[in-house]
C-alpha cells in the first residue's frame, strides 16, 4: 500500500475514532434540550431511558445519550421536546425508525430481519436443557 494511501487510511481511522470530528463543526449553539434536562424528573427519566436506546447516526457505535455530536444533540432535543409534550417513548422511536430504519434503534424488535436474534436464545435454552438432562440423569 502506498505511503499516501496508508497515511490517508490511518488519518481517517484516527478521526473516525472519536465522536467529535475536528474538521466539520457548525457554529450554532447546541439545541436547547441537547444539554438540558426536562424539569420533571420522571419525564426526564423516561427520556433518558429512550435516548440510551437510540443510536447516534454520525458516530461509530454510541447512543445519542453518550455522544457530543451536534446531530445527537438535535436528536436529544427532539426526544425531550416530544416527551414533554406527552408523546409516548415508543411513538418517538417509531417515528425515528420510520425515517432511518431499524439501524437507529438499539431496542430489539422481532421482525423478519431480526427473528434469529430471538430464535437462537430459545434454541440455546433448549440445547442447554437437553445437554444438562442427558449429562445429569441420576447415575452413580
Amino acid at each position, binding site marked *: 500500500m502506498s505511503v499516501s494511501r496508508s497515511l490517508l487510511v490511518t488519518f481517517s481511522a484516527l478521526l473516525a475514532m472519536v465522536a467529535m470530528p475536528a474538521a466539520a463543526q457548525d457554529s450554532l449553539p447546541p439545541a436547547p434540550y441537547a444539554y438540558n434536562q426536562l424539569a420533571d424528573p420522571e419525564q426526564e427519566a423516561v427520556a433518558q431511558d429512550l435516548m440510551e436506546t437510540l443510536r447516534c447516526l454520525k458516530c461509530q*457505535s454510541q447512543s445519542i445519550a453518550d455522544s*457530543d455530536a451536534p446531530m445527537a444533540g438535535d436528536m436529544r432535543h427532539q426526544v425531550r421536546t416530544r416527551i414533554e409534550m406527552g408523546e409516548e417513548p415508543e411513538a418517538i422511536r417509531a417515528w425515528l425508525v420510520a425515517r432511518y430504519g431499524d439501524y437507529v434503534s438499539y431496542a430489539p424488535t422481532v421482525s423478519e430481519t431480526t427473528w434469529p436474534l430471538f430464535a437462537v436464545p430459545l434454541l440455546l435454552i433448549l440445547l442447554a436443557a437437553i445437554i444438562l438432562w442427558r449429562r445429569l440423569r441420576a447415575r*452413580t
Partner: protein
Amino acid sequence: MIAELGLAALWLAAALAVLQLVAGALSQRQGAEELAALVRPAAIVQGLVAAFAFLMLLVLFAQTDLSVKLVAMNSHSDKPMIFKLSGAFGNHEGSMLLWITVMALAGSLIAAVERRLPEKTMLATLAAQAFVGVGFYAFLLLSSNPFERLPVPALEGMGLNPLLQDIGLVFHPPTLYIGYVGLSVAFSFAVGALLTRQVTPDFARAMRPWVLGAWIFLTLGITAGSYWAYYELGWGGWWFWDPVENASLMPWLAATALLHSASVLASRDALRTWTIMLGVVAFSMSMVGTFLVRSGILTSVHAFAVDPERGTFILGLLVIYIGGALLLFGLRAGTVSEGTRFSVTSREGALVFNNVMLTALLGIVLLGTLYPLFTEAFDVRVSVGPPYFNPVGAIFVVPMLIVMAVGPLLRWRKDSLARIRLPLLIIGGATLAALVLISLLTSIAILPFLGLVLAVGLGIGSFMPIRGRKLRLLPIATWGMMVAHFGIAVALFGMASESAFSEETLAAVEVGGSADVGPWNIVLTEVSPTAGPNWTALEGRLLASYDGGTAIAVTPQSRNFWAPPQETTESALATRWNGQLYAVIGREAGEGRWQLRLWWKPFVTFIWYGGVLVALGGVLALIGRVMADLKRRAIKSRGAIRRAETAA
C-alpha cells in the same frame, strides 16, 4: 539501523518458528531424537528474539525516529515519553508485534518450564504453537511491517489520538494481549492432546496454570479497559456491548468455562471432550476478535486502521487455524472416551451446569456481535446493543449465579442438598432479606434488582466453604476460588447499583453559581486556561460538598490537542466509599455560563474493585496450584530416590 535490527530479529524469530514447527511435527513420526532436541531450544530462543524485535520498536518510538513510517504516523516529538512508548502498541502494526511477541514468549515459557506431560504431547503442543506463530509472523512481515522506512523522513509525526494519551494505554493493551495470546497455550495444548490422543487428567492439570495465567491478565485487561473508557470518554459509561468490547469478553467467557472444565477433568477425569473444545474455542475467540477489530467490517469506536486486504489475510489465518483445529476436533474427539460418571447434585453437576450457561452466554454475545455483519450481507442494517444483550444475557447469567453461590459447597461425585441445608438456609435467608428490603426501600427496574439481590446471595455464598474448616488448613487455591467468586458478587453489585441509582444533572452554571446532583452540592468557582505538553485546556474548578460536608475541589478540563487537532473532555472524579462524583465541563453556554455535566454514581467503583478481586482470586489459585504441584513433584522425586536407595 535499529529498525533494520528489529526487522532482522523478526525474520529470525519467524525462521525459528518454522524450525520449531518442522522439528516438532517430524519428531512425532520417527521419534528422531536430534529433531526432538531442537524443539525446546528453538522455542526459547524464538521468544527472546521476538522480544528483542519488540524492544527495538520501543527504542524507535522513544527516540521518535521519524524515518520509520509507523513512528511518523503515530507519534510526535512533543508527546510525553510514557505515551511515546505505549504509543508503540497503540496502532495496528505495533500491537500485532506485541501479539506475536507474547505468543513467542509464551511458547518459550512452556518449553522451559513445562515438565508434566509426556514428551510426545509436549512436542506436538510446541509444534502447534509454532504453527500458529508462523501465520502471524507472515502477516506481520508481509503485510503489516512495523519497521517499514519512509523514503524521506517526516518532518514531524502525526501524533497519537488524544483519547489514547492516557495512563490507560499503558495498562490495557499489554494485559489484554497477554491474556488473549496466553490462551494460545491452551489452544496448542488442546491440539497437541488431540493429535497424540492424550486427553487425561494430567493434561488438564498441566494446562490449568497456563489458562489461569492468561485468564488473570485478561480479567485485568478488561477491567482496566472498562475503567479507562468510563473516565476517558466523558459520559460515564463503562460497558456498551461494542463489538470490540465483546471481542475481549468472548475469550474471557470461554477461558472461564475452560478453567472450570479443566478443574473437573483434573480432579474427576470427566468432561474431556468439553475441555478440549473450550481450549480450542478460547483462543479462536481471541483470533476472531483480532479479525473483527482489524478488518473494518464492523463499526466500532475502537477499530484500528481498517484495511480489507489485511482483513482477508487474517481471515485466511483463521480458516487455517480455527478451521484446522475444529476439523481435528471433529475427527478425533469422538475417540476420546468419557470419564467417570457423576450425579446431578455434585460439584461436577454444578460445574457442568455453569459451563453450559457460560457457553450459552458466549453464544449470545457472539450472535449479537456478528448479527449486524450477517444482515449487512443482505443489505439490511440493524443495531444490536445493551437493550438486547442485557436481558437476553440475564436469561443465562441469573441461573448461573444461583448455582455459583451453592456449587462450591457440594462434594464431588455425589452429594445431597440436605447435607448442606444450613449454609443453603443462610444464603437463602440473606437473599430473601435483600429481596424484601430492596423492593420495599427502592423502586428500580427488574434487571438491576435481580443484580443486587443475587450479588448479596453470591457474596455470602462465596465464603460459605469456610464453614467447618480450619482457616489455616484451607488450601490457597480454595481461597482463590472464594475471592474470585466474591469478586464477581462485588462487581455485580457495582453494576446493578450504578444502573439503578445513578443520578445526573445537566446545568448551565455561571462562575460562582451552583448545581446539585444527588447528595452533592457543586459550586463552580472559576474557569481558567491551562496547558500541558501537547495540549491547552480550559479548566473548571468545582467545589463539591457531599451532604453539606467539607468541600473538595475537582477540576474537569476541556482539552484541545494540536497533533492531531482534537477536543477531548477530561472528567474529574471524586471517589468516596459509597460511589463517585463524575464531573465534566463542556462548552460555554452563552451569557458567561458553562455547561456542566454531573453524575453521582453510587458504588460504581465496586465494578472495578470486583474485577481486581476476581483477578486476585485467580492469582491465589495459581499460587496454590503451582505450590501443590511443586510439592507433588518433590514427593514423587523423593519417593523415587528412596525406592532407588532401597533397591540398591
